[in-house]
């Protein structure tokens, strides 16, 4: 654990990616194989199964720190991180013990079926033997969410330095749903060829947002355009009579979407990339409908009928065992079209069509009309470009449509965490509905630090009621709230749900009577 704590402190003390890579490579050089694998897993959010309830952890920490639970909760809310709160609250180390990282993790997983009293004894003993950083890391292992600013790309680079192997190959080996429980460092990275494991997906090629004008991309004839759908990115694999559907988060979701098993009846092996959506009677549904599907581990007959899923395919990386990723986009597109044509017509696979445009002005017009097509914007791809690994500039760009905007009034404010612990940073906004106000969105980003300070002093001076960290305020401050899309929703009091709401501007020039109504918002539903 000492080495891991040192690694963590080093990584946490720099913002330079290169330095992080150096620290990681150095760690890989000296760490044991099991520890290495766990570090890779923890940093890529493959955390071990939770064996201790968060509620209990909080109670034990408060008890050990000899403070009332309410004080623990208030403090936790302000610090914003449970692992850190506990590490900083509890009494100092009693007797230092150095146990390797994987040992801690294994012991934690062995707690699974133990009685709460026994778990408590173990956790308290552990805390007593760890220093402050180790406690924080130990707690993080339990709670999950290692946000240390280490991207997958950084891990890949560090491993490729350490193993002296091509980063793209390392990235490919790291794909899939391996965990330190079902593989070893040697098996995952040294002995195996990526192709040995038939379920293994390719690293997704990720697009950059287009900043500036499309004209900057050069001659229009080098580019293709297609709609960008609002679903989730997925990779569908058929190899040796087996089918695998992977989400972009590298979760295997094959069983959640049984409609794709019909593809097993089709000829040949393939790996295709596309957008997973819900599509009924040939009409693409909004994201809320897909969310209903994503929430079900085992969908029933009814939901399958009401919300059938489909994959809108836009790339093909492998066909009958041949890796196509180095071929040009335009060639892959032809192969994809032929493949799609060869499928039976009742397959849940739709082709992402190339849009026709002769000039960038044509493309702009297509983008402007994207919302009517229920798309989020356009994807621009360069015709000669290969299928790259990870987020790389140059060949794929997402060109989103401008957000929808509505004027709303603030009715609740919530205190922020960490640096903004004494500011109010999360706000709930409402729209008019006859004589009443209906909350419709929560948003936090979009204001400058000085605006946050100003609105915070307004909240402090005008709080009507306090509900823990949340304060209600008189509805007088008007804001422009931007969002990507809006759809009907039964789960929300307002009856509508907006996608990615954020504050665009504080409209000090506007009065509460000037805000939009709920009907105005509903009118934006396509």
């Amino acid at each position, binding site marked *: 654990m000492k080495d891991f704590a040192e690694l963590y402190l080093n990584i*946490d*003390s*720099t*913002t330079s990616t290169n330095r992080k890579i150096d620290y990681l490579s150095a760690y890989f050089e000296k760490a044991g194989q099991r520890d290495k694998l766990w570090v890779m897993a923890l940093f890529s959010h493959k955390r071990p199964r939770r064996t201790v309830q968060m509620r209990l952890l909080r109670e034990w920490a408060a008890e050990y*720190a000899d*403070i*009332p639970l*309410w*004080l*623990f909760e*208030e*403090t936790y809310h*302000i*610090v*914003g*991180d449970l692992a*850190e*709160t506990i590490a*900083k*609250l509890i009494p100092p180390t009693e007797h230092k013990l150095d146990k390797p990282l994987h040992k801690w993790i294994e012991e934690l997983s062995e707690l699974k079926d133990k009685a709460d009293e026994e778990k408590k004894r173990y956790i308290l003993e552990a805390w007593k033997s760890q220093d402050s950083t180790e406690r924080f890391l130990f707690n993080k292992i339990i709670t999950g969410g290692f946000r240390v*600013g280490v991207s997958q790309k950084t891990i890949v680079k560090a491993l490729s330095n350490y193993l002296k192997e091509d980063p793209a190959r390392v990235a490919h080996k790291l794909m899939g749903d391996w965990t330190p429980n079902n593989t070893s460092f040697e098996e995952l990275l040294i002995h195996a060829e990526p192709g040995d494991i038939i379920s293994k997906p390719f690293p997704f090629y990720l697009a950059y947002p287009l900043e500036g004008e499309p004209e900057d991309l050069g001659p229009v004839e080098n580019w293709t355009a297609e709609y960008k759908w609002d679903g989730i990115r997925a990779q569908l694999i058929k190899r040796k009579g087996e089918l695998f559907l992977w989400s972009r988060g590298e979760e295997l979701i094959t069983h959640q979407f049984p409609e794709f098993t019909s593809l097993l009846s089709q000829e040949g092996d393939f790996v295709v990339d596309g957008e997973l959506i819900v599509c009924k009677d040939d009409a693409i549904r909004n994201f809320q409908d897909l969310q209903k599907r994503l929430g079900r581990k085992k969908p029933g007959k009814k939901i399958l009928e009401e919300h059938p899923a489909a994959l809108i395919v836009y790339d093909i990386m492998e066909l009958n065992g041949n890796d196509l990723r180095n071929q040009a986009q335009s060639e892959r597109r032809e192969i994809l079209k032929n493949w799609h044509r060869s499928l039976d017509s009742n397959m849940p696979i739709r082709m992402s069509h190339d849009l026709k445009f002769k000039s960038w002005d044509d493309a702009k017009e297509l983008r402007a009309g994207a919302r009517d097509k229920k798309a989020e914007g356009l994807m621009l791809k360069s015709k000669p470009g290969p299928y790259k690994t990870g987020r790389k500039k140059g060949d794929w760009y997402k060109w989103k449509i401008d957000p929808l905007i509505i004027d709303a009034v603030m009715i609740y404010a919530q205190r922020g*965490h*960490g*640096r*903004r*612990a*004494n*500011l109010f940073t999360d706000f709930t906004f409402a729209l008019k509905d006859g004589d009443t106000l209906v909350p419709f969105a929560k948003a936090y980003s979009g204001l400058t*630090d000085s605006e946050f*300070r100003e609105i915070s002093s307004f909240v402090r001076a005008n709080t009507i009621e306090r509900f823990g960290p949340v304060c209600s305020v008189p509805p007088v401050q008007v804001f422009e709230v931007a969002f990507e899309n809006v759809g009907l929703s039964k789960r929300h009091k307002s009856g509508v749900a907006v996608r990615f709401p954020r504050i665009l501007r504080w409209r000090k020039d506007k009065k509460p009577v000037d805000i939009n109504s709920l009907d105005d918002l509903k009118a934006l539903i396509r």
Partner: protein
Amino acid sequence: MPSLIQFGPKGLYCEKGGFYIDPWQPVNKALITHAHSDHARPGHKNYLCQSDSVALLKHRLSSNIKVQGQCFGKRININGVDVSFHPAGHIIGSAQIRVSDSQEVWVISGDYKLEQDKHIEPFEFMKCDYFVTESTFGLPVFHWKDQEETLQEINSWWHNNSSIKRPSIISAYSLGKAQRVIENVEQSIGPILTHGSVDAINKVLVASGIKLRKTKKLVEATEDEISRALIVCPPGAMDSSWTARIKNHAVAFASGWMNLRGARRRRGVEKGFVLSDHADWPGLNKAIRYTQASKVFVTHGYTDIFTKWLNSQGINAETVKTQYTGETVDNENED
């Protein structure tokens, strides 16, 4: 009901004595705990403060103000009310103000800390009936390390940088933290350079007879000196053209907020040293318990939470709304 001090719209008021303590609106007579801008405001007709604060007040407010200094521990009588100043350990010249008559003893502590520095008098524990306290770091996660340990961290960071000719910029309030850093780091590592506003404060202090280490303004230093230097710069001047001129520099923040990982990360800081001029959780509790006060008034910081905590511990406490800010989490105001 206590009556010697009231919490009025202009600030803490002693009617009997005819004076205010750290008022935020212009008054006739103001007693000032320390020279930070949220406690020492302009516009009062008469100021009374600890002797070391006199020059600072003149520098920060105006050279024309009417200000009187008083040394620590000396008791004077203002209209039948006894007044004395006692070390608060917060910054140079910072005082707790003790106010008493035959009925009540009050201590208004302003901002305070318990750690002992080489360059200022340590916090004085006092008994009183009514204690007015801050609670800037009034949460149980704020637990300062031994100051020597933090100073060692600063020294070794500076040493590592200077050995590879990398200038070390440390962010610290020009009044208070800057002098604490300058006076307590290991001098032999390299030259200590300052930002203009730190230098100005230092000059004022030296002119009024306070001994400080010799420092140089950044603009007066050679390239070689800069490469080995610890450069003390106020938070407001970080990320400015001033720091941009210093090539290949390393940056660190010295603040109690650096105790929170979120605060450090959101600043994008490579290095954060947990060094505060305010009391931590154990410090606040220790100081308050010692007073044996029958009532504690909590003025600024995590007031609601800290008040609730004190009451849960059997200490009668109440939150009072003031306009003091303490060490802000944004590190922008000079408090």
